């Protein structure tokens, strides 16, 4: 493994070097970023590197069936014993001394599926309480996960099922299970308000998951593309004060799902199918409030002076950006966010990388947004850099390129696309698109959900964190993208 130089994404981050912001490492595992052209690497071709375990993530059961192992396994299980436990006939022996039993048809036969499942669980609890069994459990229905064949998917620990078993990660958000039933939909548009996109990327072209975006950078010098606002959101680079181009928007968009997942190349995204709308607001050394608020409204389908109307309004906005001032000092931001939410668009934002309370950052401290703190591969708050506090709604993987807690020989950053290849970045910028992507998954199943309902679903489904995992407030816990 060869580690490249740290890349700093913002001039403000330079002061703290690693302490803030997203950094990219050029590593042997994936392509090296600019300035030198990247060589081919393992993300380009080849089969998926790690098979995934099956799981009972969907929690489906065979109604009326239980697996039981009695304390005394000598001889045949008597009919009396089964009768005493009100179990019906149809016993089938299983390996390991357990048996498969069936509840009487009179007990579950006429019930609805949900009711029968509930009755089955109740009876399991009753039998367990009898003291006669070593264990009793429902006969779960498991399905093989639809693992994407992208060769670097195995390195994307942040998508794996949450846990410690093979193929799982304690920092994962259960996408492996979620994809069993929901891979997203191109009917859901997610606006990425960022540095733009590199549409020619081998894992993005021909752009099946892209819709028309816009370049909102009004200052030609900052825009770095020779003009002000225009209809081309291609990222020409944002190098600033000696720091290289970040390709930040391409990385964020890759996580949400602009990449061609399951194409045998590169990486996977949260959504296999989605419509990413790149809205460019960050240019050389950042972007302005004025350009950002126009992009917010345009994304939501609202009019913006001097710009053609958006014909494909977004249901979700991701903003992995911010400034070090509270939202109370930026009514223009709050006004635009309120307008977007009123139009039915869910707004997801990063908490910031100052390892401080997010109440001092905008848009993280604005009302009506889903503010996302960052976790690392252990599923804990990334205390090295992530903002926190009462304005944070949820935590999601932002990674930590300084760590390798999963011992895969690679940094524990979030792996996604950059200009000519792939890179590990860390930051709340990387956490936010996981949540935006999860919101898109929700909306793919039910496009009528309001922003408040999306937030409620995300928070109620979160994996709880204790004070050792989140020594500072991190919202409802770690994102769980499996909503089944």
């Amino acid at each position, binding site marked *: 493994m060869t580690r490249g130089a740290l890349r700093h994404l913002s001039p403000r981050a330079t002061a703290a070097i690693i302490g803030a912001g997203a950094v990219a490492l050029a590593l042997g595992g994936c392509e090296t970023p600019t300035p030198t052209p990247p060589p081919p690497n393992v993300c380009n071709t080849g089969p998926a590197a790690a098979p995934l375990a099956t799981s009972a993530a969907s929690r489906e059961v065979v109604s009326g069936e239980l697996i039981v192992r009695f304390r005394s396994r000598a001889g045949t299980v008597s009919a009396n014993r089964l009768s005493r436990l009100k179990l019906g006939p149809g016993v089938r022996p299983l390996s390991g001394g357990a048996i498969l039993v069936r509840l009487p048809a009179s007990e579950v036969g006429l019930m609805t599926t949900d009711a029968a499942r509930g009755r089955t669980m109740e009876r399991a609890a009753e039998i367990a309480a009898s003291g006669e069994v070593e264990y009793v459990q429902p006969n779960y229905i498991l399905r093989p996960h639809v693992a994407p064949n992208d060769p670097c998917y195995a390195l994307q620990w942040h998508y794996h099922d949450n846990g410690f078993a093979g193929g799982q990660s304690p920092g994962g958000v259960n996408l492996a299970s979620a994809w069993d039933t929901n891979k997203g939909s191109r009917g859901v548009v997610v606006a990425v308000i960022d540095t733009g996109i590199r549409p020619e990327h081998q894992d993005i072209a021909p752009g099946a998951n892209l819709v028309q975006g816009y370049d909102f950078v009004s200052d030609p010098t900052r825009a770095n593309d020779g003009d002000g606002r225009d209809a081309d959101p291609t990222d020409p680079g944002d190098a600033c004060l000696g720091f290289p181009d970040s390709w930040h928007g391409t990385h964020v968009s890759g996580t949400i799902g602009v990449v061609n997942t399951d194409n045998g190349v590169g990486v996977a995204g949260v959504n296999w199918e989605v419509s990413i709308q790149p809205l460019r607001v960050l240019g050389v050394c950042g972007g302005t409030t004025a350009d950002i608020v126009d992009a917010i409204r345009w994304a939501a389908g609202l009019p913006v002076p001097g710009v053609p109307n958006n014909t494909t309004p977004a249901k979700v906005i991701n903003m992995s950006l911010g400034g070090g001032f509270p939202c109370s000092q930026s009514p223009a931001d709050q006004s635009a966010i309120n*307008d977007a939410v009123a139009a039915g668009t869910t707004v997801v934002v990063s908490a910031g990388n100052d390892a401080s309370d997010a109440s001092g950052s905008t848009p993280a401290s604005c009302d009506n947004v889903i503010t996302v703190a960052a976790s690392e591969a252990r599923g804990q708050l990334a205390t090295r850099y992530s903002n926190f506090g009462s304005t944070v709604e949820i935590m999601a993987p932002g990674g930590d390129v300084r760590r390798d807690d999963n011992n895969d020989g690679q940094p524990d950053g979030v792996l996604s696309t950059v200009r000519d290849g792939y890179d590990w970045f860390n930051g709340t910028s990387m956490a936010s698109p996981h949540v935006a992507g999860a919101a898109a998954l929700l909306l793919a199943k039910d496009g009528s959900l309001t922003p408040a309902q999306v937030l409620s679903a995300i928070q109620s489904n979160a994996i709880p964190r204790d004070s050792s995992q989140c020594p500072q407030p991190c919202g409802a816990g770690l994102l769980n993208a499996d909503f089944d």
Partner: protein
Amino acid sequence: MQHTLRTIAAAGALVLTLGLSGGVIAQETRAAEGSPMNEIIVGFEGGSTSQQTVLAESGPEAKAESPKLQALAAALGGRVSLPLAAVRPLSGGALVVAIDERVLARRLAAEIEARPEVDHVTVASEGSDGWIHRLTVFLREYAGKPAPGEDFGVGAFGGYVRVVEPVKAAPEPGTATLTVVFDGAELVRQAVARLKADGEVAYAQPNRILEAH
């Protein structure tokens, strides 16, 4: 008005150099990293004449050069005693305005020129859009006044004009120089405060720079 990287990355303040009898003092750059540009976002009260004007000029073909928007900005500037120019209409019926520093520098020069000991003042603007304005003050008759160490009373010209280097003797006999800082951040702060007090303004804020996280 053109907008260049001067508003992005450079240092803290616009420097006005008052060269007494021809003294020339160093220049500086402006705007500390992360500090606001000289642009201000102004949101107007719903239904106000100002908001109606902005909304009427906010179609898909909207242009910043709209005479009506420029007139609105000028009128707004008149009410807050600062030269304002319209940059562009913003979504939601707001307006981005910029403080016209070139006009402000000329206005400051005129005020200085009105002092009895001053013969005339020249303004030299540098940069593609005139982002450094060097004011050279020629004294009508320099007789040791203002004395070395004095601030030439620049505080009277506005809270955003600060002394960097008090009056000191220049190499040429009978001359002296004074350097003052035209503090861009303070200028914006004062402008925002004045705009907020205007009856038609719902909010005013600096057009700040945000960065990727």
